[in-house]
C-alpha cells in the first residue's frame, strides 16, 4: 500500500523537478551511446539522456523538456520510451500520460521534433501510455481507454496519428505491455490473457489467438502475464508474470499465432514485470519488481526453454531510496549486453547498474561500483531505453 502513497507524494514532489546539463560521451566511434529515461514527471516532464561510458558507467548529459506532463507511475511493463534508429532517423519517443501525447526528440540534436496525440478518447492517464516502434509505425497502448493507436513516423521525429483500435482482455483486462518485432505485435492485458496482432499494414489486426496463459489458469488467477518479449526470429513470445514467485511463460509463435504457453518457475522473487533478452538471446533478464535484485535465466532460443541462472545481490538503496525495480536496458548490443541498467522507482529515482558475466552456461550478476546513478529529474522512473537500440 505504501506505493500508492508514494505515487501521490511523488506527483506532488515532481513539481520541483529541475533541469540538468552535462557533457556527452561517444562510444564506438562518433555516434554517442545513450541511456534514455522517460522521467514521467507530473506537470512538466522531460527525457533525460545519459551517456554510456566504455565501462558502462552512466553520465548525465541533458534533460530535454517535453513541455508535457507524466503521471510518475502506473503499470510496470508499460514501455513509456522507445528509440527509432533507421537509415534516416534517430529518434526517441516518449509518452506523457497526463495529457495523452507522444513527443519525438531528435537524438542527434536533442531537440523536440514534434508531438502527437491519439483520438479524443485515447487515454492512459491512470497507468501510462506504452510505446513500440517498428520503423514505419509507432504504436501507443493507452491503458485507460484500452486502445492501441497507430502513428506514422514522419521526418524530423514527428508523428501523424492514423487510427486506433479497441482491445480488451478476456476477463476485461486493460492493456499492460506491448511489443513489436517486425510485423508481429504481442500484448498482455493484466488479466491473464495475451494476444498477438499482425501489423504488416500498419494498424494492428488480431491474429485471433487471444487466450488465457497457462500460468494464469493453473494458478487460478493469482499469476498472470505482464511483461512481454519476442525473440529475434519471432519464433517465441516470452512473458514475465506478476506473481509471488519468479514465473516466466513462453509461447511458440512459429505458426503465426500464440500457442499455449509453457510455464517456467525460476525462483522466489516477487513479480517479473519487466524482462529483456540479451542480444545473443542466451539470457533473459528479469526485474524482481517487488524485490531487490535482478535475475538472469538461461534461454535456449531454439527450443524456447528457460532455466534458472543467477541472481544479483540486493541492489543498493532498496526500500530506502527506491521501492520497485522496473524497466531494463543494456549497455551494448552484442553478447550478453555487458551492463544491465534497471529503473529504480523512487523519489528521486535512480538507475541501477549490474555487470553481467557469463561463461560455460554459468552467469553472475554484480552491481557495479558507482551504482546507482541518480535520476534527479524523475520521481517515478519506470521506463528506460538505450541508444542505439537492440536490433530486435
Amino acid at each position, binding site marked *: *500500500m*505504501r*506505493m*500508492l*502513497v*508514494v*505515487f*501521490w507524494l511523488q506527483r506532488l514532489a515532481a513539481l520541483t523537478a529541475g533541469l540538468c546539463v552535462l557533457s556527452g560521451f561517444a562510444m564506438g566511434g562518433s555516434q554517442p551511446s545513450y541511456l534514455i529515461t522517460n522521467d514521467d514527471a507530473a506537470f512538466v516532464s522531460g527525457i533525460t539522456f545519459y551517456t554510456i561510458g566504455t565501462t558502462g558507467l552512466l553520465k548525465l548529459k541533458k534533460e530535454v523538456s517535453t513541455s508535457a506532463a507524466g503521471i510518475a*507511475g*502506473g*503499470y*510496470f511493463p*508499460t514501455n513509456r520510451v522507445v528509440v527509432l534508429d533507421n537509415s534516416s532517423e534517430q529518434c526517441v519517443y516518449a509518452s506523457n500520460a497526463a495529457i495523452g501525447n507522444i513527443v519525438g526528440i531528435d537524438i542527434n540534436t536533442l531537440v523536440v521534433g514534434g508531438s502527437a496525440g491519439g483520438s479524443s478518447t485515447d487515454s492512459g492517464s*491512470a*497507468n*501510462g501510455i506504452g510505446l513500440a516502434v517498428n520503423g514505419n509505425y509507432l504504436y501507443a497502448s493507452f491503458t485507460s481507454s484500452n486502445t492501441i493507436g497507430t502513428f506514422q513516423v514522419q521526418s524530423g521525429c514527428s508523428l501523424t496519428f492514423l487510427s486506433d483500435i479497441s482491445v480488451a482482455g478476456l*476477463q*476485461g*483486462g*486493460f492493456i*499492460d505491455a506491448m511489443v513489436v518485432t517486425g510485423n508481429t505485435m504481442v500484448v498482455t492485458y*493484466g*488479466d491473464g490473457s495475451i494476444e498477438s496482432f499482425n501489423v504488416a499494414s500498419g494498424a494492428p489486426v488480431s491474429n485471433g489467438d487471444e487466450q488465457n496463459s497457462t500460468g494464469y489458469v493453473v*494458478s*487460478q*488467477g*493469482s499469476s*498472470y502475464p*505482464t511483461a512481454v518479449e519476442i525473440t529475434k526470429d519471432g519464433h517465441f513470445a516470452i512473458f514475465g508474470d*506478476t*506473481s*509471488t514467485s519468479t514465473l516466466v511463460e513462453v509461447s511458440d509463435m512459429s505458426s503465426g499465432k500464440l500457442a499455449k504457453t509453457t510455464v517456467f518457475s525460476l525462483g522466489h522473487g*516477487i*513479480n517479473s*514485470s519487466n524482462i529483456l533478452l540479451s542480444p545473443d538471446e542466451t539470457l533473459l533478464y528479469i526485474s524482481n*519488481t*517487488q*524485490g*531487490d*535484485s535482478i535475475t538472469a535465466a538461461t534461454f535456449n532460443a531454439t527450443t524456447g526453454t528457460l532455466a534458472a541462472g543467477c541472481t544479483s545481490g*540486493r541492489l543498493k538503496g*532498496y*526500500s530506502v531510496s527506491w*521501492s*520497485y525495480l522496473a524497466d531494463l536496458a543494456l549497455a551494448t548490443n552484442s553478447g550478453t549486453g555487458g551492463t544491465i541498467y534497471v529503473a529504480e*522507482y523512487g523519489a528521486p529515482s535512480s538507475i541501477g547498474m549490474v555487470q553481467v558475466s557469463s561463461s560455460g552456461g554459468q552467469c553472475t550478476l554484480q552491481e557495479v561500483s558507482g551504482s546507482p546513478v541518480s535520476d534527479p529529474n524523475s520521481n*517515478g522512473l*519506470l521506463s528506460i531505453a538505450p541508444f542505439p537500440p537492440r536490433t530486435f
Partner: protein
Amino acid sequence: MRRFSKFLVAISMCGSSLLAAAQCPSRPSSGTVVQDALSLYSQNGTLNADFTMGYSVDTFGYSHYCYKYQSTDGIVEAPTLRLKQGDTLLLNVKDDIKTTGADSMGGMDMTPTGAVCGDSGTATVQSTNVHFHGLNVPPICHQDDVLTTLIQPGSPGFQYKMQIPANEPPGLYWYHPHVHGFTEFQVNGGAAGALVVEGMEKFRPEVTGLTERVFVVRQQYLVPWVPGPYQLTLNFQVAAAPGAPSPIIDMKPGEKQFWRVANATLQDFTPLQFWVNGVAQPIQLIALDGYPLAAPRTLNTVLVPPAGRAEFIVQAPAVGASAQFVSLNYSTGPTGNQDFEQVLANVELTGSAAASAAPVKPAQPAKQASSESLMFAGLKDLPATTTRKSYFSEEFGGTNGPIQFYITVDGQKQKVFEANEKPVITTKVGAVEDWIIENRALETHAFHIHQIHFLMEEVDGKPVPNPDLRDTIEIPYWSGSGPYHSVKVRMDFRDPTIAGTFVFHCHILLHEDLGMMHKILVEP
C-alpha cells in the same frame, strides 16, 4: 486484480455522491478532556441495547459511520457494552445509513449465496452487520456470524443474541461492522466500540481500586482507499491535526490508572508509550486482546496491532512534570505504510475532570479466581493434533495497483477470498492445531482469527518468552531476502460451541476487504 479495479471504480463513484444529512452525533472538539463512552451494563444477567447505524459527512468532508444509541441524555455514539461472564447480550441493530447515490455500489459481487441471515439483497456500503472481535462465541446466525449476516437499510432491524461464555476471559473486546468489501469504509467512519467482560480484578488484583479508562483509538482517512494524511482519534477526539491542540487526559498527580486501549484503526500499528518529560515510563501490562496475563509485565512500549487491545496501569507524574500518551513511529515495510508518531493525548495533572470523564467505578477487592478456570487454560501443555502452514503474500501490477492480497494455506493455490468459496481448512471440534504463519509480503500484516484466541508459541522459529493468548498478532514484513518472518501459534478448537464456518484474515481492513481472508470449517 479486476476485483480491485472494480472496487476502485465503485468506491470512487460512491465517494463523489455520498452526501447525507447529519445523522451522527457531533464529535468532541480538539483539545478537550477525553471522555469515556457511555457504559451500558447488564442487569439481571442481560444487557439489552438498541443500536442504529447512521451516516453523515462532517464539515471537513470526513465520512462518519456511527453506532447511535438513544440514552436518557440524548443520542450517544458507540457505547461501551459491559457484561459479566455468563451474561446474555441482546443487541438490536437497525441500519439507517442514508447515502445518496449508493445504489451505484450494486454489483460488487460481495454477497454470499445460499443461507442468508438477516436481510437478503446485495451487500453494499449501506449494508452492515456486527462482529464481536475477540469474543469466543458461536459463528452462527444471530451470534458472531459475518459470512451470511446482512442488515439492510430500511429493514426492521436485526437482533444479536448471545451468551458470554461462563469461562470467557475478562477483558477488553470490541465490536465493528464486517460486511466483506465494505468493512474499511464503516470502520474508517468510526463505527467501532468497546465491549468489556467484567471481572479483571478477580484475575489481576493490581487493578483493584484504580480509576478505569477505556480508550478507543480510531483512524480516519479523508478517503480510505486513497492513502494520504490521516487522523488518529482518541474516543473520537482528533489526536493530531495541524494547529489543533491534543486531547487531554485528566489525572491526579501521582495517580495510578487502569487504561484499557483498543486499537480500532484501519491499519495503524501502534507502539504505545506513556511519557513523562519526554521519557518513556514503565507501564504495567495487565492483559492483551482481552486475556489477562499470567503475571503483570513491566515494559516501556506495548505494540498493539490493528484490532489488538492492551490493558495496562500507568502512573501520573508529580506536579510540575509533563506527561503524554504516545504512539510511536512504526515501519510496515517497503510496500507498507509508515505509521507516524503521534501524541494521542496530553496528560493534565488536575484531576478535576476525572470523575465525569471516567464514570466507571473502580473495581472493588474481589475473591481471586484461578486462571485455570478461563477458556484456553492449559493449552500449551496439550499435544497438537495437526500442524499447518499459511502465508501472507502480495503482488502489485503497477505503482497504482492493481494489487492482490493473499493469505494462503501452504500447498494450496493463492486466491483472494470469495464470498461463496469453500473453506480452505476443515477441522473438527476437539482439534488442537499448531499453525505457522509466514509473511512473504513486503508489508507487515496482522493475523486475526474469529471465534477463538490462540496461544503464542514461537516468533521466527524461536520460543516466545511470554506465551500469551492473542486474537490478533503482527507478522513483520519480508525484507526481500533471507527467511520470512513467522509466528507459530496454537489454535484451540476444543469448544463445541464454536463449530461452524468462520474466517481468518489480515486485520488491515483494506487487505481484508480485498480478499486477504479465507474460511475455516470446524465440524461438530
